[in-house]
């Protein structure tokens, strides 16, 4: 379609051009070189315009990938880092997507792995136990002792037709071992030496007998061990077989060598002795670990013993499982009860809870004014340290919480009462004018307050004055005043305090002033101030404690004022 497209267009343009009166130059060109120059321009446009180039490449991209992948593994090798990076990035950013994708296969995969390993375990126990308790087993044991071989080896040689016991993947040029796998349960001795020696022997034979390139030693035999070698351009695969190698083994090796060369082309070419570049190659070698056993002829008495053991084991396992699950169920019940209690508690919202793998974890939101979540454990049988709680702060819209927050923010005098009902904040009593103003501004923007009812509040100018005085008194922080200033400053403070006391009495309030001292008690000026105020009849309370962190701070003295309503029928405190 592409060649057609390129030819069609210019022709159309050429046909139109005389009618439209294209430039003379174009006409001249057309006469001289036909429509060719338009084709050239078309092709040039295609190459220069990135948009069109992308479109062109896009059209052949899929096919190009198919063709190249068939040729060799370079494309995969080139794309692997990008794909891996993309994948790991994607997993980091949005793990859920990947979880969703692999979720359906992960369960079956785990099941399969477990059942396979169970099967092989039972199989090997079966065989060992079977022969261990028989006369035959005894005979083999003696044979093993006589020949100095391991019992397993002797037992196998009697049980097996053949078995691929070891696989070596060897870097062809250096003879260095890339990967090695045994099937005997024991580690091979010095596999690196074996692999280097193998290559050396192979090269020796190859060079000594002048065989043609690509061929060479591919089988050799030592006692009842057979060595099968399959060679690729970059790596050699060697299989050590006990018994007679089956015909299907060679094709398996060929296939494995091809797979390895396709999948690990890059690490093979640049191999510098680091086998970690060949992650996953084990799986390929494992495919070659074939084996076949002899048909069983006799059923031994000992299998009764074996099965008794197995059933005993299974029963023990089941009872353990029952006990464990009951305990787990009890624990889960307690956990659910606790979650219920959390959910019922105002100011606490549980957004997520999990007890998977026995780890108890809950997450949610908690108003700073709500109860400590852990205190709700009372009466529930759950150890505190087994629970993980993560609560983020939030502002609950329960009315008691809202009211408490607003009270904190507005700091009403005791002459004022605040009530909150169905979103209406009602203010009653006498209040400073300025406070009423502030309430009018602040209350409506508080979360949980919809309307503000000020009908029951009366403005009182005297209270404004008291608030000012309180501010003045409280602001006076005495940081080790100089000796000379003392009298003036003390008198000033005394004046404010007196005014506050009398002013609040007039307004029907009781001012309670407290001198708070921070320091180690050695500061005589502070002491003097305290005495000065007390002697002048100020209702001050205070002490000179050597508070815990007192020494760290410079000595200071400040006054805290608490305003109370005048008690209904009694005198005030001293």
């Amino acid at each position: 379609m592409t060649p057609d497209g390129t030819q069609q267009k210019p022709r159309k343009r050429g046909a139109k051009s005389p009618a439209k009166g294209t430039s003379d130059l174009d006409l001249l060109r057309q006469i001289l070189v036909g429509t060719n120059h338009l084709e050239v321009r078309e092709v040039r446009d295609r190459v220069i315009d990135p948009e069109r180039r992308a479109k062109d490449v896009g059209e052949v991209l899929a096919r190009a990938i198919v063709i190249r992948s068939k040729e060799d593994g370079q494309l995969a090798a080139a794309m692997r880092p990008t794909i891996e990076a993309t994948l790991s990035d994607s997993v980091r950013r949005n793990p859920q997507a990947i979880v969703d994708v692999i979720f359906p296969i992960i369960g079956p995969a785990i099941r399969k792995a477990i059942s396979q390993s169970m099967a092989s375990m039972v199989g090997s126990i079966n065989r060992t136990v079977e022969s261990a308790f028989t006369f035959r087993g005894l005979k083999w044991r003696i044979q093993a002792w006589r020949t100095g071989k391991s019992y397993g080896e002797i037992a196998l040689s009697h049980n097996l037709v053949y078995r691929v016991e070891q696989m070596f993947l060897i870097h062809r040029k250096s003879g260095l071992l890339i990967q090695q796998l045994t099937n005997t349960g024991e580690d091979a001795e010095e596999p690196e030496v074996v692999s280097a020696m193998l290559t050396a022997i192979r090269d020796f034979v190859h060079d000594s007998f002048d065989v043609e390139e690509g061929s060479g030693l591919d089988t050799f035999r030592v006692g009842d061990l057979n060595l099968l070698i399959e060679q690729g351009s970059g790596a050699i695969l060697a299989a050590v077989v006990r018994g007679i190698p089956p015909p299907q083994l060679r094709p398996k090796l060929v296939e494995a060598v091809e797979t390895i060369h396709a999948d690990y082309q890059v690490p093979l070419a640049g191999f510098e002795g680091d086998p970690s570049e060949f992650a996953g190659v084990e799986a390929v070698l494992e495919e070659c670990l074939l084996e076949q056993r002899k048909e069983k002829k006799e059923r031994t008495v000992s299998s009764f013993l074996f099965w008794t053991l197995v059933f005993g084991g299974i029963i023990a396992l089941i009872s353990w499982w029952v006990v464990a699950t009951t305990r787990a169920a009890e624990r889960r019940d307690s956990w659910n009860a606790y979650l219920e209690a959390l959910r019922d508690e105002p100011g606490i919202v549980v957004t997520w809870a999990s007890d998977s793998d026995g780890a108890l974890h809950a997450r949610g939101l908690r108003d700073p004014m709500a109860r400590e979540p852990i205190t709700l454990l009372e009466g529930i049988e759950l150890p505190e340290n087994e629970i993980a709680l993560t609560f983020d702060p939030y502002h609950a819209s329960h009315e008691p919480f809202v009211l408490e927050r607003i009270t904190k923010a507005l700091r009403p005098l005791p002459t004022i009462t605040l009530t909150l009902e169905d979103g209406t904040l009602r203010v009653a009593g006498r209040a400073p004018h300025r406070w009423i103003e502030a309430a009018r501004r602040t209350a409506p923007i508080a979360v949980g307050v919809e309307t503000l009812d000020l009908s029951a509040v009366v403005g009182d100018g005297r209270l404004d004055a008291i608030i000012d005085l309180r501010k003045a008194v409280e602001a006076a922080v005495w940081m080790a005043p100089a000796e000379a200033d003392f009298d003036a400053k003390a008198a000033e403070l005394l004046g404010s305090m007196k005014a506050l006391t009398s002013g609040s009495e007039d307004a029907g309030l009781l001012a309670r002033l407290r001198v708070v001292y921070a320091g180690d008690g050695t500061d005589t000026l502070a002491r003097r101030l305290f005495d000065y105020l007390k002697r002048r009849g100020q209702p001050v309370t205070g002490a000179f404690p050597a508070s815990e962190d007192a020494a760290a701070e410079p000595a200071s003295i400040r006054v805290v004022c608490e305003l109370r309503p005048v008690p209904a029928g009694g005198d005030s405190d001293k």
Partner: protein
Amino acid sequence: MKQKKICMLGAFAVGKTSLVARYVQGRYSEKYLTTVGVKIDRKDVTVDGETTRLVIWDIQGEDDEQAIKPSYIDSAHACLLVVDGTRPETLAVARRLKSWAEAHLGEIPMVMLLNKSDLTSDWRLRDEDLQGPNRPGCRVIQSSAKTGDGVDDAFAVLVEKLVEAR
């Protein structure tokens, strides 16, 4: 674990096999058993917490480098050239082997060992054989497979160069 291929090169009976036996097993024997083809040993060395497995190819002694199979030194990461200090002609062999190996392998770490240093009365190498225009172009270390002198040092120098090259 990373592996490195190291080749032992030198004339016959200069002590290549003895040096490897000293380095790997810590043993020495007066008996001379000539090596046929190649014998392979391995040893793990740890440098800066990273362990490297040395696969040592002890290649049969050969005065004529053409007689050695090139495949034996293929892809080697380092070479030890061994000279017998009681036989000066083995130095010339080592020189030839060195340029032959370099032609095959390019620039790789090499160390030259002047072996049998315990045989002081028979020592026939003179200092000027290795100086000025006769400089061999690589580290030279005196060694004795018999006493163990310089053996570990020589391998340590090679390993250090291999680690650096990484």
